[in-house]
């Protein structure tokens, strides 16, 4: 069995009402409904979190490590995305937010994007290197990397095989603290994740190179914790920002749309956000229809990381606050102040990651001859389906049902239109039709009384 991706998104079947909204929005068709609940195809899921946002009853959750594990380390370090403080209303100061985080027990606070200045240099070098496949595609967004693995495997050679900022900054922290005499086993680095894809990428990293962090905290979880501390005023405002050195303007803007390409020297560089926009564009790149482009910054979320599914605040407001912070006079334009740069050579030596493997989800069979016969059959089936894509069969589309049938995973009679036609021509009894529906949607949805109880408490 081929090893599957690790996924951070999990379904709570006890809360799930079997509405199939998740099935409908999935950009890779990874979810279908069976027995009244969603079933995830692990090799297709790219952890983008569209399903999480679409779920009307919060039945999808994102795993995280137990917060208490930070106390297992004598020197717990928090790795904070710079957008974290932009989650808060403007009247809450950066100083208050940081003080509250120290209050929770962290010894050091670092912003993830501290290493962006090094990463930027590497990107410039790779773009210049004409032996590298162009356009060079950013690997910053792990959902996009997975999208390319499953849907656009021929673009894998274009991926920029370097570590993400969270890893580079972690490498720096570990080395720097060790150099300052902190025993390595005392250091616990906890990354605050703005989305599911980042969490999944820590558990099975891009290029299979070991992640550098010791734990993950969901951003909205920390947001709630910090907000509570501030509201209750139970913390000490601190003056020292000991290891919290300001990061450069470029670093602050990095996770916003356009952040990677703002500062690139010349040439043609594009920034695209939202997974559907990214898919549409990659389709063109794959056709060889996009010429002369040097670098592609691709992000799965609308408004990039400001739109991360674990960001509690509105993405447009977060982006606005972040840009405001970056525009402040106190923010250094030049990255020279960045103490991390004294470790530049060490970090650059450790920045590359291993090969990214294709995980094509489209192929119908390992054997090309069998795949061809299956595809032919699927074409025939699909041409007899209504193309309504109503999902009543449990699948995302008529085509998805056809593919599932030829793979022996579904029955063409799951289609409600096929059922009605069969009933009309006496080829299926109503009882049989109901039985098929129960297999897909569970017993509840076909029971007059239990259906009422499933109504969502809003109009």
């Amino acid at each position, binding site marked *: 069995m081929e090893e599957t991706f690790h996924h951070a998104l999990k379904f709570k079947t006890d809360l799930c009402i079997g509405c199939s909204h998740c099935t409908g929005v999935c950009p890779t068709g990874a979810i279908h409904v069976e027995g009244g609940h969603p079933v995830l195809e692990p090799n297709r899921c790219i952890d983008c979190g569209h399903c999480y946002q679409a779920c009307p009853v919060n039945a999808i959750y994102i795993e995280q490590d137990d917060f208490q594990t930070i106390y297992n380390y004598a020197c717990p370090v928090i790795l904070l995305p710079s957008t974290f403080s932009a989650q808060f209303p403007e009247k809450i100061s950066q100083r208050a937010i940081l003080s509250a985080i120290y209050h929770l027990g962290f010894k050091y606070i670092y912003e993830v994007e501290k290493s962006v200045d090094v990463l930027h240099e590497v990107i410039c070098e790779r773009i210049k290197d004409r032996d590298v496949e162009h356009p060079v595609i950013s690997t910053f967004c792990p959902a996009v990397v997975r999208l390319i693995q499953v849907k656009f*495997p*021929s673009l*894998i050679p274009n991926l920029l095989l370097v570590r993400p900022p969270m890893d580079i900054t972690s490498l720096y922290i570990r080395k720097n603290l060790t150099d300052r005499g902190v025993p390595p086993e005392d250091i616990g680095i906890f990354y605050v994740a703005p989305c599911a894809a980042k969490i999944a990428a820590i558990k099975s990293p891009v290029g299979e190179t070991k992640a550098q962090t010791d734990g993950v905290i969901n951003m909205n979880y920390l947001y709630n914790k910090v907000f509570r501390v501030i509201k209750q005023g139970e913390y000490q405002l601190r003056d020292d920002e000991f290891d919290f050195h300001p990061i450069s303007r470029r670093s602050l803007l990095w996770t916003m749309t356009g952040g990677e390409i703002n500062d690139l020297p010349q040439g043609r560089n594009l920034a695209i956000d939202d997974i559907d926009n990214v898919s549409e564009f990659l*389709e*063109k790149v*794959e*056709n*060889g*229809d996009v010429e002369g482009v040097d670098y592609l910054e691709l992000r799965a979320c609308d408004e990039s990381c400001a739109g991360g599914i674990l960001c509690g605040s509105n993405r447009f407001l977060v982006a606005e606050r972040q840009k405001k912070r970056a525009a402040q006079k106190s923010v250094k334009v030049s990255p020279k102040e960045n103490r991390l740069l004294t470790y530049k050579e060490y970090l650059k030596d450790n920045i590359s990651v291993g090969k990214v493997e*294709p995980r*094509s989800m*489209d*192929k*119908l*069979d*390992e054997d*090309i*001859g069998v*795949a*061809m016969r299956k*595809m*032919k059959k699927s074409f025939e089936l699909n041409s007899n389906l209504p193309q309504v894509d109503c999902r009543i069969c449990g699948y995302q589309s008529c085509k998805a049902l056809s593919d599932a049938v030829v793979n022996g995973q579904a029955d063409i009679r799951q289609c409600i239109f096929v059922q009605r036609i069969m009933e009309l021509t006496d080829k299926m009894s109503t009882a049989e039709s109901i039985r098929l529906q129960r297999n897909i949607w569970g017993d509840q949805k076909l029971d007059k009384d239990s259906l009422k109880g499933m109504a969502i408490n809003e109009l």
Partner: protein
Amino acid sequence: MNFEYKVEGGDFSNAGSTSSAVKRIMKQIGVDPSIVKRTVVALYEAEVNIVAHAYRGVISVDLDEDKIRIVLDDEGPGIPDIAQAMVKGYSTASPEVREMGFGAGMGLPNMQSNMDELKVDSVVGKGTRVEMVNYFSHPEQTQA
């Protein structure tokens, strides 16, 4: 398996739709990604040629377990000297067109470097027939 697609001359906004459809099919039967890419790049070039130069055309795709064979038949002005058209850099485009970045004379050579076999037949005033084949068995073959 055989698929047929119609192409309208002059319809630039839809150019590439056949390439995308063929790409989806090749992915579904599990052709090596590098061969999918080479084939689609060549097909896209050929498809756009019909859109740019011909009145209309038909693209016929034959899929076997070991190869893909694509035949593009168009009704159009035809190519007077095919041997010359196959030469890198040869172009009939006017300087104005070249200035815009088109007509670099890389169309046919580019198709040739991405396909294992390429055959071009043309009758001036009638049309052009491009026949191209890629085999699935040797993904290690590098691009020229």
